[in-house]
């Protein structure tokens, strides 16, 4: 056995050009697989991140049945012990309590139905991207009362500018009519046209007073540090809370449309990865096969010298394993730093104004992100190892099948 190892090892280095080509096939296969899965992971993480920061966070705490009905009747509380727990949880990057309601907003003779969200001006910044979307004026501030921030198109339709007063009318939790004047503090630019013409933000304290809501809130939006941990955090929080009063939902429950799109897209991506594996598998297979077939003469000679066909099979197979091992190692050494570099320095897409506008519209930056998760290089390497082991089988069988006489005569 040790003789076969030694022979295989020597054979590997006897023809550096051939070895180089075979190894490079494996290097490329591993590197491309790692890169592709990192790019698709990064792409989805980014899209989910952008969506949850426009919506209700990675994890949302709500009253029972809130997601089904979404009215003021389904409320919950954020008491001091819960707030402390959320603040101290290392997995949580930020949390923000909100009141979600509907109202009519009017200026003189124009009236529009809007979604009214009461937000805590300070806490909101740690969770959502809304405070960053101000295009004129400023976001809500703590301590300033009866101010409102409007979507851009809504402000246009109402014909109001910073400092103007608008009348908000709605039905309070107590079922009495509620109306009050708010002054426009800021105007946002929101990518979704429906939100841009239908969203008004007021402070949480104002919302609780306006809707006669006491300390009640509609939801607590939670931003996690690692997007993968949304589901486990929701479960952990859910199990420690009283389900009669408060529920924890990961984002797929809050945004089923997005979750559905992500699942379909991920499956599509796996399909593409599977095709990529087939393509690189054939690359490896063809290279090994060719490398073995061009050594026909050599095998004929060693057969004539008395080596058993089975030994040739083992030597050739060992060579392939050695080559695959070297290729895998080099592939990971190339791919991991490359992905880590891309993770730190996303590739900007700057080919057109139109493209930049499209990215703006979706609410994301015009860059291609990569994201490395531990599973991905391990799975890629295992896949390619398996592929290489299978691909080497046939060439090794072919190598051991020649008859010395035929082989030597054919050249």
């Amino acid at each position: 056995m040790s003789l076969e190892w030694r022979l295989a090892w020597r054979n590997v280095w006897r023809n550096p050009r051939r070895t180089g080509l075979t190894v490079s096939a494996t290097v490329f296969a591993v590197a491309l697989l790692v890169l592709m899965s990192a790019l698709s992971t990064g792409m989805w993480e980014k899209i989910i991140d952008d969506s949850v920061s426009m919506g209700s966070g990675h994890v949302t705490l709500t009253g029972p049945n809130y997601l089904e009905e979404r009215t003021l009747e389904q409320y919950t509380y954020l008491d001091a012990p819960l707030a402390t727990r959320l603040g101290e949880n290392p997995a949580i990057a930020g949390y923000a309590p909100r009141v979600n309601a509907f109202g009519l907003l009017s200026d003189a003779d124009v009236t529009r139905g809007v979604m009214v969200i009461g937000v805590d001006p300070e806490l909101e910044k740690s969770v959502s991207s809304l405070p960053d979307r101000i295009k004129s004026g400023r976001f809500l501030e703590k301590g300033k009362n009866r101010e409102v921030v409007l979507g851009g198109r809504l402000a246009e339709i109402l014909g109001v500018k910073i400092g103007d007063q608008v009348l908000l009318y709605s039905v309070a939790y107590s079922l009495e009519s509620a109306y009050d004047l708010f002054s426009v503090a800021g105007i946002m630019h929101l990518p979704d046209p429906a939100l841009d013409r239908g969203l008004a933000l007021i402070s949480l304290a104002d919302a609780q007073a306006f809707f006669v809501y006491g300390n009640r809130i509609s939801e607590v939006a939670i931003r996690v540090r690692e997007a993968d941990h949304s589901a486990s955090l929701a479960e952990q929080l859910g199990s420690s809370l009283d389900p009669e009063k408060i529920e924890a939902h990961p984002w797929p429950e809050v945004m089923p449309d997005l979750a559905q799109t992500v699942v379909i897209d991920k499956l599509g991506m796996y399909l593409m990865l599977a095709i990529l594996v087939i393509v690189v598998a054939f690359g490896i297979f063809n290279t090994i096969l060719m490398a073995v077939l061009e050594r026909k003469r050599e095998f004929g000679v060693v057969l004539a010298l008395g080596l058993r066909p089975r030994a040739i099979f083992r030597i050739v197979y060992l060579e392939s394993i050695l080559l695959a091992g070297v290729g895998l190692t080099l592939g990971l050494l190339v791919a991991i730093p490359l992905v880590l570099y891309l993770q730190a320095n996303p590739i900007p897409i700057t080919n057109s104004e139109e493209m930049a506008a499209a990215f703006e519209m979706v609410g994301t930056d015009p860059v291609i992100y990569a994201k490395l998760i531990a599973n991905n290089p391990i799975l890629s390497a295992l896949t390619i190892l398996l592929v290489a082991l299978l691909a080497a089988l046939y060439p090794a069988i072919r190598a051991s099948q020649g008859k010395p006489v035929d082989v030597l005569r054919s050249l």
Partner: protein
Amino acid sequence: MLSVIRLAWRNVGRNPRRTGVVVTAVAVGLAGTLLSMAIFSGMMFQMVDNAIKTDLGHLQIHAQGFNKDPEIGLFLEDKGAPEIEAIQAEAGIQNWAPRIRGEGLVTSPSSSVGVRVIGVDPDAEAQVSMVSGSIVQGGYFDQKRRLVLGEGLARRLGTEVGDKIVLSVQDLEGDMNGTALRVGGIFRTPSAELDRSTVFLELAPAADLFGMGDSISEIVIVGHSRDAVLETQARLSAALPDREIERWDELQPLLASILSVMDQMASGLYLIIFVAMSFGIANVLLMAIYERIREIGILLAVGLSRGRLVAMVICESILVTLLGLVAGFTLALLALFALSDGIDMSLWAESLASFGMGTRIFPVLTPADFTIPTTVALLTALIASAWPALRAVRLRPAEAVRHD
């Protein structure tokens, strides 16, 4: 030159084993690339198609200003008669349906919810949207004075088929107007948003409710294909200068942007697949030529000129690659044919099973998709054969013949 090609062609046939390996490398690489592109385009296509079939249509006709601020006061008079005349003059339009579109409040005994109210002509609507085919409970306007609403909305209201609910809206005059209707049917579409926030009723009661008389808000148009409606849009715009004729991507700029962002992301993935393909081809070709250095030496020794030798080797590689391309196209087309019923994603993800058609991906390949991979494959073949061939002919014949 002709003799070089003949020589090359003979060489291709002379070593079937080598030819076979190279042809497989090219064919599998190309077929894989084409299939990936087809699946990705299919996914994008499906996304748009879902939106178009749900309620968007290819084109919509509105009064000026409606798209910016969809208000009940912006309408098309006389049931859209002049618009319909223009539509009927168009050959490219398959189906169209008039609608009234407004906002309202639905109240059930347990809660009230703000909704989009859409008045439709049930038969015409069934031709342009999937709502009629997505009824999961009750029927689709099979009785008078019924309304049809989404499953999510029914849950929010706590109502079932047959229950009475009150629909109140602000009419054209600005007065609040209400009517009680029974729930006739409940639908479930791939769009949870639509299911959660929309009620459909017949055109006549909707017109009464909003005080619209003979007017309608919009006409939805479905054409033969997304590309074909571009011309239809231009001609309709010319025929109806004081109307807004909008395409689906203008009506849903967010969707259009998501598509172009995904397209951009896809180019990164395509790049990786192209690299994988050309690497597979290059590797095999390099090896195929290196193993022939001895043969090249012999040909040099018997007096073949270096130029013709290089030309012959390149010619051979191109011929073999072309064979591979033909095989690859055949393989890809066979795979596409096998997948022509779509790839049912819900087989793998149980959570998608309830969404029906929306979870099936139909791979799409346009003739334009063939050009880039073909060019990449041929260029790779050219470079991967020219380089080693040029190196090989520079060796002295005696050295080359001894080469292992």
